[in-house]
C-alpha cells in the first residue's frame, strides 16, 4: 500500500473473541479499508489482514516473534500463537523462535518432506478403510467425528509408532477435536483430562523406547542426537503432542468444510471425479478458501511501523491468514472456489519459517479421504440442517459435527482400528 494512503483503522471487531460470528463478512470489508488494523477487543491488539503486509510480517520473525513464555501455574503467560496468551506450555516448534526453533524443526523436517509423507499413504488408507467399514452398512456417518477426526489422529499415532488399544481409539482422537471449540463448555473438562491422559501415554512411550527402540518416528526421535545431545522426556512429549495437535483439527476442518461444499456444488464434485488430475490444484484452493487455521498470533519484539501503524514492543499481532487468502489484490474472485486456480500463492499453511511442517502429510490425508469416500460412498450428501459449526472464528475454522447420508454398501474388512 502506498505511503500516502496509509491510515490506521480502529475497530471493535474482535476476531479473537469466541462469541463473534460473521467474521467472513467483516474481514474483507475491513481489509479493503485497511490491510493492518487495530482491534479494541481483548486488551487491544493488531490484526494483519492484507496479503502483502501479512506475508512480509510473517517472514520477519525477528520482529514478530512466536515465542511463548509460561513455565508453571501462577505465571502470567506472554507471547505464543493465541490472542490473548493462554496459561499452558509452549507448543514446539510452533511457539518458539530460532535458534531453539531450528533445533526441533530440522530434526522433524525429513519425516514430513514430500517423499516421506507419500510413504504414509498405505497406513492412512488402512485407517480410512476400517473407519468406513464401521459405517458403510448404516448409510449414515458423521464426517467430522466418525471419519476425519479419528482418521488423522490414528494415522498419526501409527506414523509415530505409538500403540493404542481398540477400545481407546476415541480417547486418542476426540480431545484434539474438542480442543478447538469446546473451551467454555462442559465438554472442555473432559477434553483437558483426556489430553493429560495422552501426555501420560506419550511419557510411557518414551520409557518404552528408551528401554528398547520401537519402530516408527517416535522411537527415532527418542534416540536422535541433536547438537545438545538427546531430547529430554518433556521435549519428546511436547513434540508428540504438537504433531498430533497440528494435524488433527486442521485437516478435519479442511475435509469437513470441503464435503459441505461438495454437497452444494455438485458440478464441482463431478469435475473432481471426472478429472482426478484436478485434485492437486483443487486441494490448494480448498486450503485457501476455507483457511482451516484462519489466524495465528505474533508478539512485537521492538517498536516498529507497518503501513502507518506504530506497533510497540510487547503488543500482539493477529496474522489473519483467512483474510489474506481473500485479498482481491492477489486472488481475483477471491470469494469463489476456482478448482484449478493458478497462480495460487495462498498462505493457508502459513508463511515464513513456521510454515506448516505437515503440509505434505495433510495433502496425503486429503487425497486418501477424498478417494475412499468418493469410491465407497459416491452419493454421500451432507445433511446441512444438522451441521454444527464452531461457535466462533477462533483460530480454527472448523465444525463440531457434519452428519451425512449415503446408499449403504459392503464392508471390505473387519473395521478393527488398532
Amino acid at each position: 500500500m502506498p505511503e500516502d494512503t496509509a491510515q490506521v483503522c480502529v475497530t471493535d471487531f474482535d476476531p479473537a473473541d469466541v462469541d463473534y460470528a460473521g467474521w467472513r463478512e467483516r474481514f474483507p470489508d475491513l481489509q479493503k479499508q485497511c490491510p493492518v488494523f487495530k482491534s479494541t477487543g481483548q486488551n487491544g491488539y493488531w490484526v494483519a489482514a492484507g496479503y502483502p503486509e501479512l506475508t512480509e510480517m510473517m517472514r520477519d520473525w525477528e520482529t514478530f516473534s512466536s515465542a511463548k513464555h509460561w513455565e508453571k501455574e501462577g505465571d502470567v503467560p506472554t507471547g505464543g500463537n493465541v490472542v490473548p496468551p493462554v496459561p499452558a506450555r509452549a507448543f514446539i516448534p510452533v511457539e518458539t523462535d530460532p535458534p531453539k526453533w531450528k533445533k526441533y524443526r530440522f530434526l522433524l523436517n525429513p519425516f514430513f518432506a514430500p517423499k516421506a509423507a507419500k510413504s504414509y499413504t498405505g497406513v492412512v488408507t488402512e485407517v480410512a478403510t476400517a473407519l468406513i467399514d464401521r459405517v458403510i452398512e448404516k448409510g449414515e456417518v458423521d464426517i467430522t467425528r466418525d471419519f476425519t477426526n479419528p482418521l488423522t489422529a490414528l494415522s498419526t499415532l501409527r506414523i509415530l509408532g505409538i500403540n493404542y488399544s481398540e477400545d481407546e481409539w476415541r480417547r486418542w482422537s476426540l480431545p484434539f477435536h474438542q480442543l478447538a471449540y469446546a473451551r467454555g463448555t462442559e465438554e472442555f473438562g473432559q477434553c483437558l483430562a483426556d489430553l493429560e491422559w495422552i501426555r501420560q501415554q506419550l511419557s510411557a512411550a518414551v520409557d518404552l523406547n528408551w528401554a528398547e527402540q520401537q519402530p516408527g518416528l517416535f522411537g527415532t526421535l527418542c534416540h536422535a542426537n541433536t547438537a545438545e545431545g538427546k531430547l529430554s522426556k518433556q521435549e519428546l512429549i511436547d513434540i508428540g503432542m504438537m504433531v498430533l495437535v497440528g494435524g488433527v483439527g486442521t485437516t478435519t476442518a479442511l475435509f469437513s468444510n470441503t464435503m459441505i461444499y461438495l454437497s452444494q456444488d455438485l458440478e464441482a464434485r463431478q469435475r473432481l471425479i471426472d478429472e482426478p488430475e484436478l485434485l492437486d490444484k483443487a486441494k490448494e484452493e480448498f486450503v485457501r478458501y476455507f483457511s482451516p487455521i484462519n489466524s495465528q498470533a505474533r508478539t512485537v519484539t521492538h517498536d516498529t511501523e507497518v503501513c502507518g501503524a506504530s506497533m510497540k514492543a510487547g503488543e500482539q499481532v493477529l496474522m489473519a491468514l483467512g483474510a489474506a487468502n481473500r485479498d482481491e489484490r492477489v486472488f481475483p474472485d477471491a470469494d469463489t472456489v476456482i478448482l484449478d486456480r493458478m497462480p495460487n500463492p495462498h498462505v493457508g499453511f502459513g508463511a515464513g519459517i513456521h510454515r506448516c511442517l505437515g503440509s505434505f502429510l495433510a495433502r496425503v490425508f486429503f487425497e486418501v479421504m477424498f478417494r475412499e469416500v468418493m469410491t465407497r460412498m459416491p452419493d454421500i450428501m451432507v445433511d446441512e440442517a444438522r451441521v454444527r459449526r464452531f461457535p466462533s472464528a477462533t483460530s480454527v475454522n472448523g465444525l463440531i459435527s457434519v452428519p451425512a447420508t449415503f446408499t449403504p454398501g459392503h464392508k471390505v474388512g473387519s473395521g478393527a482400528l488398532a
Partner: protein
Amino acid sequence: MKVRVNDDRCVGQGMCRLACPEIFELNDEDGHAYVKMTDVPPELEHAVDHAVRSCPEGAIETY
C-alpha cells in the same frame, strides 16, 4: 529466460512444483525447491511465471 530459487527465502511451500513440475522439484530433506534446469524453454515460460506468482515467499527469481 533463466530461473533460480533463492534458498534463503524458500520454506518449502511446494506451490512452484504444482505450477511447473517440469522445472521445479522438492528435496527429500526439508521439502525446499530446486530447479532441474536453469534455462526455461519458451513453452514453459508461462508455467514458470505461474510458479513465480504462486510462491508466497517470493523465492523464485527469473532473469
